[in-house]
């Protein structure tokens, strides 16, 4: 006698076989003690397993505790989201602070001309000092018209930077005005400290691309 395959017994137990197979198995079980034993064992085991459905939580307040945990979790999430936001904002602020002076350096607009600090101004290497008999606004206008970058301003002078062409143009314009003193370069060379002397020869050479100079107001 051919015994019923175990998987068929399992499917028979779960009642998922078609009517024909079911009938066949029923008939076989009625006359085969071995298959009957298997089926009874399966029945006993599944009955035992179903008893595990009685396993349950002993804690009465489990649901409320869970809700509390969820609320706590949400509060934590919000806190960490806020912290993350603050951290990112701080990083952005730090980046802005770090790169701000650089951006001001490249800004030639009138509003930003005096934003370079004293410490940076002191580090600038001047190529020359040009005494002019102009007021502050006129000197500033002159520099801006010639695309010079204003690096620093004070009541008595303006420090600016320009390329060779602009610098020549500025010099010519100052030359043309009454306020310009003749032989300015030699004047400065004589009157000023040796610190700047080394730069003067370069002023007449075309190899220098940029000049940093100070218009000394009177």
């Amino acid at each position: 006698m051919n015994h019923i395959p175990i998987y068929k017994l399992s499917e028979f137990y779960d009642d998922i076989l078609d009517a024909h197979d079911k009938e066949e198995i029923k008939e076989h079980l009625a006359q085969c003690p071995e298959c009957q034993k298997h089926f009874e064992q399966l029945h006993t085991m599944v009955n035992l397993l179903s008893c595990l459905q009685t396993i349950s939580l002993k804690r009465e307040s489990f649901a409320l505790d869970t809700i509390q945990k969820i609320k706590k979790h949400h509060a934590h999430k919000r806190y960490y989201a806020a912290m993350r936001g603050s951290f990112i904002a701080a990083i952005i602020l730090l980046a802005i602070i770090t790169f701000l002076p650089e951006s001001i350096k490249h800004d030639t607009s009138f509003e930003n001309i005096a934003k370079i600090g004293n410490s940076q101004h002191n580090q600038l290497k001047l190529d020359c000092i040009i005494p002019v008999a102009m007021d502050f606004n006129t000197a500033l206008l002159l520099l801006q018209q010639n695309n010079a970058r204003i690096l620093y301003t004070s009541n008595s002078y303006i420090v600016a930077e320009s390329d060779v062409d602009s610098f020549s143009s500025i010099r010519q314009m100052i030359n043309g005005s009454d306020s310009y003193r003749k032989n300015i370069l030699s004047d400065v060379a004589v009157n000023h400290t040796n610190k700047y002397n080394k730069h003067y020869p370069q002023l007449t050479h075309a190899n220098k691309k940029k000049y940093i100079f100070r218009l000394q107001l009177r």
Partner: protein
Amino acid sequence: MSEYSDNELIDRVIAGDTDAFTDIVKRYQNKIFRYIYTRVYNYDEACDMTQDVFVITMESLKTFRRESQFSTWLFSIAVNYCKNYRRKNRHKIYSIYNADNEMEFQIPDLRQNQEELAITNESMQILLEELHKLPDDYRDILILRDIEGESYTTIAQALQLTLANVKVRIHRGREMLKSRLEKRGLI
């Protein structure tokens, strides 16, 4: 227990009524706990893990597309959570001989119900131990089928298996458990 359906409760929770989730927890806490308990076999740990499953469920409730029953979806969350938990704690040694376990579930005295089986607390412990020793895939499927009484289709959805695969695993799982229980003299 609330008279609202799962979907009604979910709508309320999504609308912002967090307390409606209490009813969902009450409805499914034992089912999820049973599943987790048979995996970790430790009451306190199973409690914490069950809570975590509900926290995750609450968080992802908006993503529930209602293509399956809520209980099926919840169970699949529990299954995935347990898999991840096991991966994270793979070095942890689970003791299946927890002295406290004996007090953690109640065995109905079926003799009073005139059933054929005289089930003792000891036999339940043996059954739990042997169930715990089964490979995860087979244990999960036996829990769903023979403890929770879920249909083949629901099991396939919860475990993301084909129907044919479910049939094979149920049969193999039962075979494995049967031979283990035979050796222990339980059946």
